């Protein structure tokens, strides 16, 4: 059962296509995994459609327009259907450390954007997902009994559990859970006896706050290579 969902505003911006690329991937993947948010997105689509294409009488098309209706209709009737652009086949399998993960549809359709895995200190692995835009999108894989040093962020951090379970000081997060932390939150994510594959969007570099890990601050550059 998914306990943590994106906000309604996230879902509206996702449906309108107005989030950053990294957040579109995050919210889209959550929606793939969450029937509740799927229904919500369908409602939002309907509301946006009604608002934009509803029965308010718009200006006639020809009024200021470069083309008249008849000409455009003819152009459409004479046009050829655009061929399917699915250049890259969806791939919903991800292999890591001998584990096989089944990717939700949004990630499967974008699997060609997943870069190579690199190992980080502390039983962590990371792979960048290259989607364009300012924000970084990464897979973070935590093996069993792994932990990330306590840190805050200069910007916002969104984490989505793709498979497994992790916890921080406040909660336990499982498949599909979507967690958004702003720069006031400190947290130290860790796994217990189960591993965890997450997708993380970071607005700014990680900022380590606790004891020794402050010395590890250069470590944060590993997330931003």
């Amino acid at each position, binding site marked *: 059962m998914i306990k943590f969902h994106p906000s309604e505003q996230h879902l509206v911006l996702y449906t309108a*296509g107005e989030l950053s690329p990294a957040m579109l991937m995050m919210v889209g993947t959550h929606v793939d995994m969450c029937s509740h948010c799927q229904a919500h997105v369908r409602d939002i689509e309907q509301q946006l459609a009604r608002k934009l294409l509803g029965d308010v009488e718009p200006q006639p*098309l020809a009024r200021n327009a470069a083309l008249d209706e008849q000409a455009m209709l003819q152009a459409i009737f004479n046009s050829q259907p*655009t061929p399917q652009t699915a250049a890259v086949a969806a791939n919903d399998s991800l292999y890591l450390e001998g584990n096989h993960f089944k990717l939700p549809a949004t990630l499967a359709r974008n699997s060609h954007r997943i870069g190579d895995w690199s190992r980080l200190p502390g039983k962590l692995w990371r792979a960048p997902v290259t989607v364009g835009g300012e924000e970084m999108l990464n897979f973070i894989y935590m093996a069993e009994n792994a932990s990330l040093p306590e840190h805050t962020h200069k910007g916002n951090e969104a984490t989505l559990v793709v498979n497994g379970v992790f916890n921080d000081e406040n909660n336990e997060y499982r498949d599909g859970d979507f967690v958004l932390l702003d720069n006031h939150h400190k947290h130290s994510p860790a796994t217990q006896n189960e591993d965890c594959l997450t997708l993380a969007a970071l607005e700014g570099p990680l900022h380590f706050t606790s004891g020794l890990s402050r010395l590890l601050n250069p470590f944060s550059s590993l997330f931003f290579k």
Partner: protein
Amino acid sequence: MPPAQPDNAEHAAELLAKVASEQSRAAFSELFRYFAPRLQAYATRQFGNEQTAMDLVQETMSNVWHKAHLFKPDRGSAATWIFTIARNIRFDFLRKNKYRQYDLSADDLWPVLAETNDSLDDDYALDDDLLMQQLSVFCEQLPAAQRTVIELIYIEGKSQQEVADALQIPLGTVKSRTRLALQKLKELIKHDD
């Protein structure tokens, strides 16, 4: 009683069905006269550029004309479907303005116009390996027209719409040929056991 307008959801869905099944220009024109000005108003607000707005209208409505068979009335209204097409086109327009190789494409986020081969679901889907091993043998026993469709879909990996375009036959014919061929293949495979 005023005549039914496309803002009546049922009527709009009927018009789309007519466009899909018989390429009805009259039905499409009615949809066009309703939706095109509204799309133009939306796109003009979004882009602040008349030509780009017109391009969005034309590209959106071209997709409605060519892909009406992908509209699923049980998933939402015609207006909602047309909105999602326009949303995708707008997203890709904005992306092309500052085109970078790795940027997301709308179809990879929201596959609104993906051909789903839905007649191949469940009942008619055959196990892949089974297909590959036995298709070639059994296909030879199919009528030529059915065999061609099956080969294009399963061996060349074309969508049903692409097969319809390639053979210049209606999509409905491709679907019924596929269905008949798969039924026949199932019988052949069963009797072979």
